[in-house]
């Protein structure tokens, strides 16, 4: 499935995180401080914890459980104890709708 529209850009404020289950895949969408939307696997690569319950600061998402940090743009680990990068997905805006390419 490609470019699936998820919601209107106005529905998620800057700094917000929201979880979606797409075809059984938990995805987290972030509206980052740079004004862009980023999509990534909602499950922390360290332990099974939903990142959508965490927090955004700058271009980083923080896991609420052990405070692992991931870069929204690359998925790379910015802070332990996570060791593996998170999977990221392309996001586009079409007709004021946030779309994700799974």
């Amino acid at each position, binding site marked *: 499935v490609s470019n699936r529209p998820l919601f209107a850009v106005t529905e998620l404020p800057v700094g917000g995180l929201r979880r979606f289950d797409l075809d059984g895949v938990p995805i987290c969408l972030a509206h980052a401080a740079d004004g862009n939307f980023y999509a990534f696997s909602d499950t922390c690569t360290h332990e099974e914890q939903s990142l959508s319950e965490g927090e955004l600061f700058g271009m980083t998402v923080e896991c609420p459980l052990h*405070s692992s940090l991931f870069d929204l743009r690359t998925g790379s680990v910015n*802070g332990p104890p996570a060791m593996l990068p998170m999977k990221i997905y392309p996001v586009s805006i079409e007709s004021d709708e946030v779309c994700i390419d799974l």
Partner: protein
Amino acid sequence: MMDKQAPAPRRLAGGDEANAVEITAYGEILEVFRSDKFTATVGGDHDHIYRTETMVRLDGHDHLDRRRTMNRILRRDGHKWFRDTALFPTVERNLQQLLRHADADGFVRVDLVTFGLRVQVALAAALIGLEGVDSDQKADELFGIFNRIGIRETFLEALHGFDDADNVIARGLEAKQQFVDHYYRPSLAAHRRLLDEVGAGHLTEEDLPHDILTMVAAHADPDWVDDGVAVKEVMMVFSGAVRTSADAMASVVDELLRWFDAHPDDHAMGIDPNFLLGAVNETLRLHPVQVAFLRRAREDVLLSGGTRVGAGQLAVLRTPVANRDRSVFGENADLFDPRRQVPPGQYSYGLAFGSGPHMCYGIPIVLGSEGIDGSLVHTLQMLFRAGLERDPERPPDKYRAGEDARRYESWVSYPVRFRPQAKLA
């Protein structure tokens, strides 16, 4: 001098040993740690004194909520702040002080265990917000109180009870009250006064101390409105921080000195942070400070390796055995190798910090954000830069109890010396 004699975990009646399943395989232990089919609520008869309703005993969202609150202190750069403002100045001050007092032959002789305990008490006091722990004497006094509280004796109570329970608990309750009266309540009252100052507009929130008692005073968690749970939470943080880190530091030094004896070309690596990080990871893997973790099954569980744990049974997770699993750490898993490479996604330190939701709260302080900026690597660098070497006249002393998977070890003393005119770089 601190009372460093650690009590032994004992196999005695009173626990649930007949209803327990020992698990030693690395993969199966990880499964249990991560599974919601097991609960961490596994306390024994006296757990209400020590751990009930604290972060280590909560499950699911209750645990996540508490952890999220506690994380406010250490997340992002919070852990760095504690190392920079509490730990490193304490290490440096204590070392400077020690290096000024040489014996007649010019050598400075130090017991690394006493040194480690004092700096870790200072760090734990800063993290919690305990006031009045501003001298070696006060650090020794506070550690002595905690040694009597009985946290270590009751750690595996649910499994096998412990020796001399009536006396241990009577002594523990008395020591706990002493801690509450002399340290906890005065410190909490001081934090509440600061909050009042913020309320009156005389201070801002930025002026408040960045510590656990500030959160307790502000009732950041609904269970901290009265002292019952908050005192236990603070006790868990203190006990988790002090003895374990002091033991780990002596163990790393011991492993490194033996490594340098066998590999003299590596001697200069004692100040290399990446080499020291490898040594720290290997030491934590080979000398974990906990002999086991406990979980209780909520339902019948069949683990991937074929081990069955029945509903209501205790799972005894023997992490010290799993940390030597050759399928994960290679054929030389029993040996110390500071240059060991582990498969991607595996912890270099094994299961020393546990895993799953309850993974150790203090990891950010110990390992830092890059690994090499954690408390152990930094302290080791300072010690080796100052010229630490084994004291040939005073052998180290280790307390040992139990055998094989149940073996418990703790350093009683680890004498070292610094050469004449040693100083901090």
